[in-house]
């Protein structure tokens, strides 16, 4: 039988994925396919497995069983390829408290092998509205400012798949609006967005697909 000609691999594919912590299954035999060009909303209560799923796709964790694929690349065997493809905005900001906002971004720009790290960092700080505070250490930042800096970090990677874990948390209403704008821009530029949030209304306005998790399993919302 002939294979179907060059259909683009799905943006995200979960094949019977389970993740165990001790005796507890954070994800239990989850299978799901997200086609290219669509965005996914992850919903569910605390502890339903949203964060675990995002961390699996980001390759911060490996699945106990099953396979996770991002654009046809396996998250375990082709870890480095996937890491260049995805960016994670997580609860933890990945920011060095003792470095300034600018220095934090420059370190990442250098790791990504960019040509003018300082300029790239400056542009992004402008974009997230932190130019005034660019030389303050992160330790002095409020939760909302950290979130914005973390978004700048995510944007710097120019990911193909953006994994957003509670992006609206700790933001004021104007911050939520700004975040929505950034997510729309990401989507318009062809980025696959996977969004985990408790704010179902905002999320559904942004994403075409929805996956509701309960106790690590996919259920109808």
């Amino acid at each position, binding site marked *: 039988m002939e294979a179907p000609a060059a259909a683009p691999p799905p943006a995200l594919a979960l094949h019977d994925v*389970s993740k165990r912590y*001790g*005796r*507890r299954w954070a994800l*239990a*035999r989850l299978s799901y396919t997200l086609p290219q060009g669509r965005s996914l909303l992850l919903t569910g209560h605390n502890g339903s497995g949203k964060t675990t799923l995002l961390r699996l796709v980001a390759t911060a964790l490996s699945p106990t*069983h099953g396979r996770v694929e991002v654009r046809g690349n396996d998250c375990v065997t082709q870890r480095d390829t996937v890491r260049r493809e995805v960016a994670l905005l997580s609860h933890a900001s990945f920011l060095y408290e003792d470095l300034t906002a600018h220095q934090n971004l420059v370190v990442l720009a250098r790791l990504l092998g960019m040509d003018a790290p300082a300029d790239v960092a400056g542009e992004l700080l402008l974009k997230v509205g932190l130019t005034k505070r660019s030389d303050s250490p992160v330790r002095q930042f409020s939760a909302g400012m950290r979130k914005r800096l973390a978004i700048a970090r995510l944007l710097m990677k120019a990911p193909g798949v953006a994994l957003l874990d509670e992006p609206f948390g700790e933001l004021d209403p104007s911050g939520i609006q700004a975040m929505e704008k950034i997510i729309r821009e990401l989507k318009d530029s062809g980025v696959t967005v996977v969004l985990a949030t408790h704010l179902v209304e905002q999320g559904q306005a942004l994403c075409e697909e929805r996956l509701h998790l*309960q*106790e*690590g399993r996919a259920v109808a919302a």
Partner: protein
Amino acid sequence: MSDVMKTVLQVLSAAAALTSVFLGAWLGRKWAPPGSRYNARPVLLGMTAAALGLLALGNYLGLVWTPPEREMGDVYRIIYVHVPAMWMAMLALTVNFACCVGYLLQSSWKTDALAESTAEVGLLFGGYGLVLGAIWGKPTWGTYWDWDPRLTAMAIMLVTYVAYMALRRFVEDPEKRAVWSSVVGIISFVNLPIVWFSVKWWRSLHQVQSTPKTVDPDMTLALRVNAWATLILLTLFLLHRYRIALATREAEVALPEALPTDVPGPRDNHASEVA
């Protein structure tokens, strides 16, 4: 005792010990996994009897039959327990190293359980041997501790593996614990020869190692019988400890490595209540 008799003794004790190791490995597969219904009692009793019998024989040979040593007199007879204990400690820790490497290449709870049991039993024999060594030191050197290179290296080895066991206790996530303790186990084992050489250089007053060449052939026989007996003991200890380790893993991660839907756990009941 005639030469034929001695040969027979050597062969019999070796055969008993090697059979026990083989049986131990077999029971490790059949009887040790949790939920096994295999009746191991007769085999275990047989192995215990063989160990005790050989130990009694070995100690008779060591304490009564062999002649006293030229310089140390009767004091030297402690080697019949001291040296086998140390050999078994080294053997157990070598197996531990193999398990650590094996786990990093191909993760399996059995390898992890065996690593845990070999470290603990190795530590037991090593500690026992070290105490015996210190007791031996009192009449020979006039003090329990003389910074003898071998004793010092052994003491360092014991502390290293106490740290390994402590690490295992301090990490709750079983997967992380298995990986990290494998890393620590490999580094600790590679470090042993390094410790040995540096301590020897540091203290260049060392005795010649007690290989069979440097002692009377009758002493060799007694030492060998004791060593084989201790090997059976080691196998028994390892077998029991391995069984406990597997049961602990079972309690932690639900062996065999079943998928969630295969184990009806509390979560499934809860899910059906909600639905």
